[in-house]
């Protein structure tokens, strides 16, 4: 199957799911209702129509768009990191990038910076994500193998997790604790267009950086020396992927909290279909990530009934067993 066809299929599924996501909820809406709500208003609206319009444009649409944006970010960042590190186990979450981004955001919440300026929380999340990616990059540059890299990722995760726990531990009052914990669980609920406006530039810049690395990631299939002999500057490539990942993951984490395993699972599922091409995997994983996150969000709203399940919890509940399955299934030779 050609790569274009796979992307087209993913895109079609994404469109259908987006529509479904706009339709389901406490107030079920038909496709006609949604179309009417999205189109410019014709004259005076009835109270029902006005209410439907509010539900679609102010509650559900931001949620759908954010799911797509964050899913695409996590999916592509995972694919790019796996390409750069030449390792199917690489993932922003597994390597401590997400945990570090969370730490940045939590520190912002803890010290109350988040209330001072809207931009401080995403900035802190992205800086910490960049710092973590930089550490990983230094580990890789010293010629460390995959095992060392994953150990370094675990160490980073543990450190960021411990500091996050410390912030919760020392939080002056219970509301702060609740704010931090709820935020950490990861969610797309109650997000507005303001949140989208906040992260869109960073996510787009990050995606563009990662996309521009495609051909070089392809060359890296051959190993570092042969890639360099083809004119690839490894230092530039690493810098682009590190920065792109930090922007994507940092920005995503800053609005939705920690959502794990999308970056690991999606490239895995699609790699074979795109012929193992690291470059082709980038776009496919972005679409696949958006699809997965949107699907998880719809599912969660369908099954959770009265109370809101947290999205990050659900993706980890699905992702972690899947990851275990991958580890068990993979032959030893492929892992190292």
């Amino acid at each position, binding site marked *: 199957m050609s790569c274009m066809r796979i992307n087209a299929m993913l895109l079609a599924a994404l469109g259908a799911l987006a529509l479904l996501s706009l339709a389901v909820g406490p107030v079920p809406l038909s496709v006609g209702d949604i179309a009417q709500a999205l189109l410019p208003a014709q004259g005076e609206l009835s109270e029902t129509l006005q209410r439907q319009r509010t539900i679609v444009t102010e509650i559900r649409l931001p949620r759908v768009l954010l799911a797509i944006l964050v899913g695409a970010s996590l999916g592509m960042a995972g694919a790019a990191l796996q390409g750069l590190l030449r390792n199917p186990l690489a993932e922003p979450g597994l390597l401590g990038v997400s945990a570090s981004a969370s730490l940045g955001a939590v520190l912002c919440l803890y010290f109350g910076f988040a209330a001072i300026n809207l931009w401080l929380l995403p900035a802190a999340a992205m800086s910490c994500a960049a710092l973590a990616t930089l550490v990983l990059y230094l580990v890789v540059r010293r010629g460390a193998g995959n095992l060392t890299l994953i150990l370094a990722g675990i160490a980073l995760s543990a450190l960021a997790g411990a500091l996050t726990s410390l912030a919760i531990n020392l939080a002056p009052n219970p509301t702060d604790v609740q704010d931090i914990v709820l935020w950490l669980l990861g969610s797309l609920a109650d997000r507005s267009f303001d949140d989208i406006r906040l992260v869109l530039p960073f996510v787009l810049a990050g995606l563009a950086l990662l996309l521009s690395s495609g051909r070089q990631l392809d060359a890296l299939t*051959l*190993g570092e*020396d042969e890639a360099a*002999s*083809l*004119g*690839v*500057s490894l230092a530039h490539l690493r810098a682009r992927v590190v920065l792109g990942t930090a922007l994507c993951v940092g920005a995503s984490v800053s609005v939705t909290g920690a959502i794990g395993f999308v970056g690991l699972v999606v490239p895995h599922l699609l790699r074979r279909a795109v012929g*193992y091409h690291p470059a082709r995997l980038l776009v496919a994983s972005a679409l696949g990530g958006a699809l997965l996150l949107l699907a998880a969000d719809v599912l969660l709203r369908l099954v959770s009934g009265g109370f809101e399940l947290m999205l990050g919890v659900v993706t980890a509940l699905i992702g972690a067993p899947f990851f275990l399955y991958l580890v068990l299934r993979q032959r030893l030779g492929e892992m190292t």
Partner: protein
Amino acid sequence: MTLLQADALTVRLGDALLVDAVSLELGRGELFGLIGPNGAGKSSLLRALAQLLPHQGHTRVDGAALDSLSPVARARRIAYLAQGDHTAWPLMVRDFVALGRLPYGREDAGERTAVEAALAHMHLEALATRRIDGLSGGERARTRLARALAVEAPLLLADEPVAALDPYHQLSVMELLRRQCALGRSIVVVLHDLTLASRFCDRVLLMHQGRAVACGAPRQVLTPAHLQQVYQVQAMHGEHDSEPYVLPWRCQPAAAHA
């Protein structure tokens, strides 16, 4: 006519001197062997020639100083095949070979013909749509060579391309390299097999502890004295089909000889 000219290449790693002022010159269509025991500095010299290692000394290809060229311009002049197989993902053979076209950018009019020619040279047409992880060791070695040929660079640097291959594939890869030279390409190849070196190479450079010990026609370089001094072995020298062979026969440490 000279294609490659390297002057006093020196590679240091910390305090260790890996390559000590080695110079070499290579003509068009020449198959040039780099030989020497493990740790002699062959791979370091090759990587320095490919500009993959920080080094002192100058290299010119086709008259152009390599350090004055952009990485892409350099990549179009030198194809490099690393020692060992580091392939990360099991691409399809044709896609894998096409990676050699990276220096030509996205709008590469020559890609199709270059890839098909490289596949044909390495007798891989029938395997073009197979995945690389399903190939035998010999087929994989030929695929990696085809990737390097697809660069269409006048100079190919290959680090032990026949290591870990059975005798049939060792000979077939060497014959394929020979044929590339007949087509005008120049090749520097690192070899451990002295018979392959003496049979197929126009000239060889014998290295020992980072230095060039001797350079010239295989018969002049692979002498009993050199083999004893550098490899510490005694070898059988002979001729078959009027071509020379060298068969290492027994260890002969320097002390025992003295």
